C-alpha cells in the first residue's frame, strides 16, 4: 500500500488518500462525498480525482479540500464478470483462439485512464455468447500487448503455438486476436512461417475497444469464428469490418492487406487484390469472392519458423541522405527493403551506396510507396541503374509484406542469389501477377 501511495501524485500524498477510499469533504461551499479515483496520466499534480455519487469524476485541488473525513474503504472491484458459466457445445466444430492483446481485448485502465489490453479471451467469448452457437471454442492467452509493441521474436512464438494446434486434427481453425496497428505484419509472418497450411488462421481485432457499446469487436469476432469454421481456404487471413456500417466482415489475405485508416472500422483494405470472402455475421454465412486460394487439407503443415532481425524498411524521399544506408551497412544489416517512389525509384545519387550495400552482401529489395500497382525498374534510367546495382524488385508486394518476407528469407539463406530466388517466388499469393482494372481504391 505504501508503495502505491508513492506512485501517486503530490495531492494524494499531501491529503493521505489513495484510490478506493470513500471520503466526505467540504469543497468551496458544498459538502461532497465520493470515491477517490487514481490520477490519470495528465492529472495535474495538485489535483485529486473523485468519483461523485452520481457517477461523475471531478478534479479538485487539494488546497480546496476542507474537513476531510475518510468514511470507508471501498475498493472498486474491477473487471470480473459475475455471469453464469459458459456452456460449450461439444457437437460443434472445435477452434482455438490465441490471444495476443490489442484493442479487441482492451478496456479502460484506471491507473492511467487509458485503454489497455487486459481482457482475457474467455472474457471476450463471455461477452459475445453468440459464437457459442457456431463453434466449440478453446482459448489461450499468449500475450497482452498492443500491437505496436509486437516484435519478430513474438511472431516466432505465435507461429510455434499455432503450428502445434494445427498438427492436432481436432481443430478446424485458428483465431488470433491482435492489435490492428501491425496485424498485417504478423499475419504475413505466419503466412510464411507455416507452410502447407491445413486450416485457416484468422487474425481479428477491433478499432473500438470491447467495453464500448459501439465496439466493432463483437461482429469482427463472430465473423472470425465463422471463417475459422467455414472457410474453404487454409490461409493466414484478417477478418475485420468490410465497411463502416455493421453489415459484413471482409476476410482478406494477410500478405495483401494493409491498415489504411487511423481510426475507421473498415481500415483494412485488400491492396492489389480482393478480399477472399465476405461474411454475414447475422445470417452466419460466407460468400466466397476469390476462387484461387490454398484449400484446407489433411496434410501435415510445415513449420519454417525464424525471422532475421537485421532487416530495415526505409522510405525514399527527395533529399534522403545516403548516410542512412551507410549506417545500415556499418551496423551489419543483412537486408533492406526500400519503399521507393513511383515504380520503385530512389534518387540517382543513392545508387552508389546501394551498390556498396549489395557488395557487402546486403539484400536490397524494392517496393513502391504508391502501394497500388507493380514495381518496374526497366522504364526509366534510374530504375535500370538500380537493377544493374543488383536490387531485387518485389512486383506488387506491399512494403510491409516484403519486409517480413525478406526477414524470413534471410533467416534461411546467406546466398544473395537464393534470396533473389525466394523473394521472387510466390509462396502464399503475396504477389498478384494479374492486376485487373477493379483492383484500385474502391
Amino acid at each position, binding site marked *: 500500500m505504501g508503495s502505491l501511495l508513492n506512485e501517486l501524485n503530490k495531492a494524494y500524498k499531501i491529503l493521505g488518500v489513495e484510490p478506493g477510499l470513500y471520503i466526505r469533504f467540504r469543497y468551496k461551499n458544498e459538502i461532497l462525498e465520493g470515491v477517490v479515483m487514481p490520477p490519470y496520466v495528465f492529472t495535474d499534480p495538485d489535483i485529486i480525482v473523485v468519483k461523485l455519487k452520481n457517477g461523475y469524476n471531478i478534479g479538485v485541488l487539494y488546497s480546496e479540500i476542507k474537513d476531510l473525513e475518510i468514511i470507508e474503504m471501498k475498493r472498486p472491484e474491477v473487471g470480473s464478470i459475475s455471469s453464469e458459466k459458459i456452456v460449450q457445445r461439444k457437437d460443434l466444430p472445435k477452434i482455438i483462439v490465441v490471444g495476443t492483446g490489442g484493442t479487441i481485448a482492451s478496456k*479502460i485502465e484506471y491507473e492511467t485512464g487509458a485503454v489497455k489490453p487486459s481482457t482475457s479471451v474467455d472474457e471476450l467469448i463471455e461477452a459475445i455468447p453468440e459464437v457459442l452457437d457456431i463453434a466449440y471454442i478453446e482459448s489461450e492467452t499468449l500475450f497482452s500487448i498492443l500491437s505496436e509493441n509486437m516484435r519478430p521474436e513474438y511472431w516466432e512464438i505465435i507461429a510455434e503455438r499455432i503450428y502445434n494446434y494445427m498438427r492436432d486434427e481436432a481443430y478446424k481453425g485458428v483465431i488470433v486476436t491482435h492489435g490492428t496497428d501491425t496485424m498485417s505484419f504478423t499475419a504475413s509472418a505466419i503466412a510464411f512461417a507455416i507452410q502447407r497450411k491445413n486450416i485457416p488462421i484468422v487474425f481479428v481485432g477491433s478499432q473500438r475497444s470491447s467495453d464500448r457499446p459501439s465496439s466493432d469487436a463483437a461482429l469482427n469476432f463472430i465473423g472470425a469464428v465463422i471463417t475459422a469454421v467455414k472457410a474453404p481456404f487454409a490461409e493466414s487471413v484478417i477478418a475485420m469490418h468490410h465497411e463502416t456500417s455493421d453489415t459484413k466482415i471482409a476476410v482478406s489475405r494477410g500478405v495483401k492487406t494493409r491498415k489504411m485508416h487511423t481510426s475507421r472500422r473498415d481500415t483494412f483494405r485488400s491492396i492489389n487484390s480482393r478480399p477472399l470472402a465476405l461474411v454475414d455475421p447475422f445470417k452466419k454465412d460466407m460468400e466466397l469472392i476469390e476462387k484461387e486460394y490454398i484449400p484446407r487439407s489433411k496434410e501435415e503443415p510445415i513449420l519454417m519458423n525464424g525471422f532475421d532481425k537485421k532487416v530495415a524498411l526505409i522510405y525514399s524521399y527527395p533529399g534522403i541522405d545516403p548516410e542512412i544506408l551507410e549506417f545500415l551497412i556499418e551496423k551489419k544489416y543483412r537486408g533492406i527493403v526500400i519503399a521507393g517512389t513511383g515504380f520503385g525509384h530512389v534518387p540517382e545519387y543513392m545508387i552508389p551506396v546501394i551498390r556498396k550495400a549489395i557488395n557487402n552482401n546486403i539484400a536490397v529489395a524494392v517496393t513502391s510507396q504508391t502501394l497500388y500497382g507493380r514495381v518496374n525498374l526497366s522504364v526509366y534510367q534510374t530504375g535500370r541503374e538500380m537493377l544493374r546495382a543488383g536490387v531485387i524488385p518485389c512486383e506488387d508486394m506491399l512494403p510491409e509484406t516484403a519486409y517480413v518476407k525478406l526477414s524470413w528469407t534471410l533467416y534461411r539463406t546467406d546466398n544473395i542469389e537464393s534470396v533473389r530466388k525466394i523473394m521472387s517466388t510466390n509462396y502464399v499469393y503475396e504477389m498478384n501477377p494479374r492486376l485487373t482494372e477493379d483492383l484500385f481504391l474502391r
Partner: protein
Amino acid sequence: MSYRLNYDEIGLRVGLEIHQQLDTKTKLFCSCPTSLAEDPYKNAVIIERRLRVGKSELGEIDPAALFEFRRGRLYRYLASPSYSCLVELDEEPPHPVNREALVIALAIAKALRSNIVDEIYFMRKIVVDGSNTSGFQRTAIIGLGGYVETSQGIVRIQSIALEEDSARKIEEKDNIVTYSLDRLGIPLIEISTAPDIRSPEQAEETAFRIGVLMRLTGKVKRGLGTIRQDLNISIKNGAKIEIKGVQKLELISKIVELEAYRQYRLLQLKNILLEREVPREDISLDKLVDITDLFVNNKNKIARFIREILEKNGVALALPLKRFKGLLGFELGPNRRFGSELADHARAWGGVGGLIHSDELPKYGIDEEFLKEIFRRLSLSHEEDGFIIIIDEREKVLKAFEAVIKRIHQAFEGVPQETRAAQEDGTTRYMRPQPGSARMYPETDLIPVKVDEELLKEAEKYVPEPFEIKLRRFVEEHGLSKDLAYSLIRSRYIALYEELVRKYSPKISPQLIASTLINTLKALSSEGLDVSQLDEKDLEEIFRALSEDKFSKELIPDVLRVKIKERDKNVDEILRILSIKRISLEDLEKIIDEIISKSSEEIIKRREKAFNIIMGRVMESVRGKIDGKIVAEIVKRKILELLRSSGQ
C-alpha cells in the same frame, strides 16, 4: 376537471434538469457546424449500426441500457458531409473539447453562483437507444452548487454539466430507428436543480428563470428543440419519477400537476389493494390461461384487428385478477387509467400493440355474452374480479405479461421508480427503467482540462450582469422609467428586450420596445386576448416591420390584435387586413391643405389655438398611416404659413 392537490400536504418535491444548446461556431468535439439540416436525407450517406451493452468499470450492467439492448434494434444514421464527420460516426476519436463551449458553460455556471471544479473530466454516460453512435454521451461536471431565485423561494443548483447533444430521431419503424447526425455533438449545458421546488408554478418559474439567465449570455441557441427540460417529481411516500423531453416551458406546470396526481392516486390504489386483501401471490405467469379458442369461437363478433392477429399465429392469453373489479379502470389522470399504465409496460417490454382489460369491456366486439364466457373460463366473478388479455405471438405475449405482472406487483408497494416520457397533453408514459450510476465511466480519449485563470477570465465576458446593474442601465441608458424597467426585469421578455434593443435601437427607441412588451401586451391581455399565443418570433417580426417603416408605432396594438387571432399571417398580410397603406408626404400635405383651406376662417380667428382642432381633423383621416409627429409638424407649419399669408 382539476387535478390540483394541496402540495404542502402531499409533500411535492420537484427538481429540474435543463438542457440548453450553446450557440458555438463548431461542435463540442469536432469542427462540424452546429446547425441542423433542413432535409436530413439530402446528400446523406446511410450507415447502419447496432449497439451492445457495455459493462461499467465496476462490472455492472445498467438496467436502462439492458432494456434497450434487449429490443435488438437496428440504428440507421443519416450522415450528410455538410453536418457531420467521422467523429459523429464514431469513426474518429473526439478532438479536444471546444474552448468556446467551455467558456460559455463556465460563464453560465458563474452566473448561477456555482462552484467551478478545478479540473474537468469528461465521462461516458451509457445510452444505447442509438441516439449516440458511440453508445454513450460525453459529459463533464463543470460546476457544483449555486442557486436561482424564484418568487416562491430559492432553488438550489446541484450540478452543471457540459455535454454533447444526441442525434436527432427522424423515424422509428419495424425495429429500425433512423437518426440524423446533424444534432449529435452540438454543445449542451445541463443544469440540475435540487428537489427544492414545491409547486407546479414554481417549477415553471424556475425553468423560466434559468432559461432567461442563459439567454442573457447571448451565446445560447434559440428556437424549438434548443432547450429541453427533464423533471424529477416525487410526493411523500411516492417515488422519484424522471420525466424526459419536455420541450415547451408552458407544459411544465401541467406535467408536475398531473404527475403529482398520478402518484397520489397510485398510493390510493395501493391502499385499496391492501384493504381488499387482493391475493398477490396469485398474480403470476403460471396462472395465465390460454383462451385463444374462445376468440376463435367468437371470431365473427370480435374486432378485425384481433382477428388478424389470431390468423397470423397469434394467441390470446388471459391473466385472472381476483378482487380487481374497477381497479384496472382506476383513474390516474386525464384519459389515463391503471390499465393504460399496464399497457405501456406491455408495449415497451413485449412489443405488443396493447392489452385488453375487463374494466373497459364490453368493447372490441367482446359483448356481454362473450364477457361472461371469459369470466366463466377464468373461474372469476363478474362482480368482484378482473382480468387482462394480451393477443399476439406467444413469445411476445409472455414477455408482455412478464412486464405487466411485475408492474401489478409494484402497485402493492405504491409508486415504482421509472423514467417516463412527456406527451403533448401533459400526461406521461412509461419509457424505461431508471438508469443507475453504473452507466458512467471515464472518457479515455480526452485528457482532463485544468480550469485556469485564463479560462475564467474569458468566461467573465459572457457572464450576464446582475439584475441590480441591469435595472440601473435600463433607467440611465435606455431612459426607461423605474417602474417599467422593474416590470421588464421580472417579465418573460427581458432577454427578448435586450436583443431587440441591440438590433433596432435607436431606430426604435428602447422605451417603445419596453412599453410594447410590458404595457401594450398587458392592455391587450385585459381586453381578454390570449397574449401567450405570441411567441418571440412573432414579436420580433413586428418590430422588424416597424423598423422598416411598414407601419407607424400608433398601429402596434392593432397589428398585435390581429396577430394574436391569426398567427399564421405575416405583418404584410395583417396590414392588408387592417387595410392600411402608408400615405406619402405629398398625399398628407394634400389632405392637410384641404382641411386647412376648409377651416381657414376658424384658423385666422383662433390663431395658434386652432392647432389642436385641425390636428384632430387630420388625424381622423390619416391615423395609423403615418407618424403623428410628422403630421403635427406639417400642420403647425401650414397653419403658420396661412397666418403669415393672411397678412397678420
